């Protein structure tokens, strides 16, 4: 089975839109971070992420016959395929760090797999991205450790942030349409399900190391937090939850479905609308404006 152009586009836009939208959120810390080094850190990470999105848009552009500007700013909200985790507001420092940690650890697993993609141009770009993502991961881990060590308010905020973000972080690995074809052709070398297992297992170990695994316990059962089966995004507090985290043979794993997610199919939370309006405002007022 050969994947269609649509499948390639979905794979690329998922990667690119995650970077663009989270980059946009990171950029909102510019001028507001707790101190100037962090102002520079989040601004630099945002700049990197937007550049990565740009490279990926330029790879997918010829298939769609569109340029990078029209892909970044010229699409309707339901045409963006980012994971919901990336579009949430920054909330507080605890959530921002928790989200960066969850996203960049997940991104690292996904990028490592893509280095062996049979799509040569994609595999080449991924090598470039990984060299830069190393610094993002480093930043997230330093802050993760610092907040986890306390004092208690910081640790609590990190735990709350992880709890808010963990479900939507799982949905980064929501299966793609035509995923089977992408995998059998080697464009996506491993199934999202496998990548999720690797990532969640490793995150589970790291949370246990700092005694924050109670965050995962909260999402253990398919309980009251189940979103509707229709796939609509439901708000539960700050975020909806992909439920069904369980520990098997000493390793955390995901046994629930992805109902309520849908980022890879263009479904978004109410938070996306305001972001989209601001991000695309200039381009909509001046169609054809260049990056």
């Amino acid at each position, binding site marked *: 089975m050969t994947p269609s152009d649509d499948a390639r586009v979905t794979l690329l836009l998922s990667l690119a839109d995650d970077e663009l939208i989270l980059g946009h959120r990171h950029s909102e810390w510019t001028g507001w971070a707790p101190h100037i080094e962090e102002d520079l*850190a989040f601004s*630099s990470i945002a700049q990197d992420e937007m550049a990565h999105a740009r490279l990926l848009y330029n790879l997918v552009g010829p298939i769609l016959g569109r340029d990078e500007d029209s892909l970044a700013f010229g699409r309707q909200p339901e045409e963006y395929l980012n994971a919901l985790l990336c579009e949430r507001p920054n909330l507080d420092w605890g959530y921002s760090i928790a989200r960066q940690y969850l996203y960049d650890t997940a991104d690292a697993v996904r990028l490592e797999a893509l280095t062996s993609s049979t799509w040569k141009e994609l595999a080449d770009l991924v090598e470039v991205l990984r060299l830069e993502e190393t610094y993002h991961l480093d930043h997230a881990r330093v802050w993760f450790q610092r907040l986890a060590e306390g004092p208690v308010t910081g640790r609590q905020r990190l735990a709350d942030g992880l709890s808010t973000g963990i479900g939507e972080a799982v949905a980064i690995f929501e299966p793609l349409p035509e995923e089977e074809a992408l995998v059998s052709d080697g464009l996506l070398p491993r199934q999202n399900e496998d990548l999720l297992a690797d990532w969640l297992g490793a995150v589970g170990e790291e949370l246990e190391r700092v005694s924050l695994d109670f965050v995962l316990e909260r999402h253990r059962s398919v309980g009251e937090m189940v979103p509707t089966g229709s796939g609509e995004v439901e708000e539960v507090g700050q975020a909806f939850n992909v439920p069904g985290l369980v520990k098997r043979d000493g390793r955390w794993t995901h046994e629930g479905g992805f109902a309520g997610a849908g980022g890879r199919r263009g479904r978004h939370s109410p938070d996306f609308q305001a972001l989209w309006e601001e991000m695309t405002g200039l381009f909509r007022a001046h169609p054809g404006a260049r990056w």
Partner: protein
Amino acid sequence: MVRRAEDTTDLELEIWRALAQVHDPEIPPCSITDLGIVERVRVTDEAVEVDLLPTFAGCPALDVIRKDAEAAVGPAAGSRETRVRFVYSPPWTSDRITPEGRDALQSYGLTPPGNAPVGGAVRIPLGALRDRDAIITCPFCGSQQTELESAFGPTLCRSTHFCQACRNPFEAFKPKLP
């Protein structure tokens, strides 16, 4: 002035010399050849093609560097078309910076990547930026008593440090290595 080289090999050398006059606007003393940005020069009957590697993908100086490179190569290329483009394979790594480039960074007050007390490029892992044992010498006084302030700085390619000996903040060119 339009100059003509006898054969393509001579012309290639001339192109390389022209590119050695192009500087990264964010690091003025360092030419793009010393930064290891120039991956390939190819001369055909019709065109002069130059492949450049971006240091960091989001570097805002890339367009300026490409235009400056085109302008520098133009006179030597003569009637041939000049094509300067950025490519992403192989990825640029900081060990592509030449010894001359490292000296230029140092004299500019920017500690070269993988800086060590005795000469030569030393590969250090990224995590070592924070490691107490990693040696990032102060570009002003040469002291090794320095601290990492942040892996991020005024440009994407720089980290920020503080020297305990001369009490100066300073910047280093970030290592970028697999």
